[in-house]
């Protein structure tokens, strides 16, 4: 059970995360710790690439909901990309796909 | 009857002096080598806490004689930041997370009696006694 969280780009108003591995009850605290500071930045646009996430359970959903609410409260935007069908289904079932930005096209060269 | 001698703790070498003092008294009182090692380990921990967290303080050794029972008391005094939550530093596992009061529960277990008094901003007074069996 491993997780790798890299912040590959970070500016005042933009951050890009690459997450790889499994997100479950054991790895979720590490993910939360790494992402929490981002949600405190005013008006930030965060893109999280989940292409290399092989497994995610409901605890992982919890982390992203927390992040989503935090970023939104500070006037920012969270975008999740690269979700596999399995992951996408989790967001569909939970109704989150209707309120979160999931698997949309990333605009080339963020402003 | 109490006879006290003290060592000022200002730097790491003073920890050695405090240990030496404690060992000499322990030997004189007739403690065996195992108990001597326990007493000096306790002294090390307490003196190190002073050195690391209070900056300076004193470590004193008392010879006790109560109802014919001989004992050795370690007194660690400092005027450092004090400990806001004593119950927390007396919990096992707290020392590993660093911070104030490293190893205090361990010191308590090495000795027979243990007493701690601390007020934030005023300093800390720790007393630990071992009785000769």
């Amino acid at each position, binding site marked *: 059970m491993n997780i790798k969280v890299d912040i590959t780009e970070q500016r005042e108003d933009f951050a890009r995360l690459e997450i790889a591995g499994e997100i479950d*009850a054991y790895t979720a605290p590490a993910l*939360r710790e790494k992402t929490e500071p981002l949600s405190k930045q005013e008006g930030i646009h965060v893109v999280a690439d989940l292409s290399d996430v092989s497994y995610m*359970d*409901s*605890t992982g*959903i*919890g*982390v992203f*909901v*927390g992040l989503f*609410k*935090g970023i939104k409260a500070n006037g920012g935007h969270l975008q999740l990309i690269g979700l596999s069908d399995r992951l996408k289904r989790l967001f569909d*079932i*939970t*109704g*989150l796909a*209707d*309120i979160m930005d999931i698997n949309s096209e990333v605009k080339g060269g963020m402003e | 009857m109490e006879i006290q001698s003290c060592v000022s703790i200002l730097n790491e070498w003073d920890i050695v002096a405090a240990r030496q003092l404690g060992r000499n008294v322990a030997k004189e009182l007739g403690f*065996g*080598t*195992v108990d001597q*090692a*326990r007493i*000096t*380990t306790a002294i090390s921990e307490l003196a190190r806490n002073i050195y690391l967290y209070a900056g300076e303080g004193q470590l004193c050794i008392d010879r006790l004689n109560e109802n014919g029972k001989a004992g050795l008391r370690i007194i660690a005094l400092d005027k450092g930041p004090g400990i806001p939550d004593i119950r927390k530093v007396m919990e*096992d*596992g707290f020392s590993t997370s660093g911070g104030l009061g490293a*190893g205090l*529960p*361990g010191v308590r*277990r*090495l000795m027979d009696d243990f007493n701690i008094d601390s007020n934030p901003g005023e300093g800390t007074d720790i007393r630990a006694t071992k009785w000769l*069996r």
Partner: protein
Amino acid sequence: MNKQETLEAQYSKILQEYMNNQSEQALYAAQQFSRTALAKKVPPEEVISLQKNAMQQLMPDLSPEVWHSFDILLEVMTAYGFAFREHQSLLDTQKELKNEMEIASNVQDTLLGTSVPTVDGLEIGALSVPAKQMNGDYYHFVHDGDHSVNVAIADVIGKGIPAALCMSMIKYAMDSLPEYRKDPSAVLESLNRVVEQNIDDSMFITMFYGMYELRSNILHFASAGHEPGFFYRGKDKEFLDLEARGLLLGVDKNAKYKRYEQAVEVGDMVILMSDGVTECRTDEGFIERETLISYINEYIELPPQEIVNKIFRDLERLQHFQLRDDFTIIILKRTK
């Protein structure tokens, strides 16, 4: 004192025997000795002292350097003794916590207890098993006379104590909304507001709420992000997803929950579960919904309670008897 002397005598005897013949038997005796010593919680520095004392008896003429070397060993082992005592004390604490957990788990059972209603024409089977001691899954039945049987199944994200505490809140929130009991969407909307106000940002709850109308045999239901259940159509022997969309409880206080309907014929079944069932990990990966269907199919002729028991038993074995998540499954079957 006495215990010390006997230990000392034992140790000395073993050491002497080994010095004479280096036998495996003496080494085995040493191992047995350590078992006793550990049971008596003899710290490591004490063992060094035993060694030194025994050596002094057996070989009094060794050079002073050898005796000095013991001082270093003693000092080092005293530090190990420090850790050994902490370990002992942590073990005691762990035991206390375990006892407390057991009591808490009993309290939870009493708090959240629900009985499966007996209804003419509707057979019900239900089973909920926690992965750890405390259950973060929850189900609840309300039997409303001739009118309806209501069923709620919920899953708190996370396991253990935080999840269990959360569930108690949900249970009381549900108990205090009797007038809404009949309408699944109203129930979920009320609960959502309670949850949104009361829990942490990264904690939330999924819930399926169903109201089975006994006269019309229609299941009215709504879902708050809960794993979809199955509808088994007895006539065609086919499984359909009991699809319902709705947001998790606790994310958005204005969330709306759509109410769905499903007519139930004789021989049809409604199968509800928590994600501990579908997210069950096995050596070959996850249980697919199709695999789960094939398991249910195998027992389809049995009464609902037996079906849920057997499915649990099978999935438990697939996971080598280690549940990673709380597991809940409920089956309602119309029999006439």
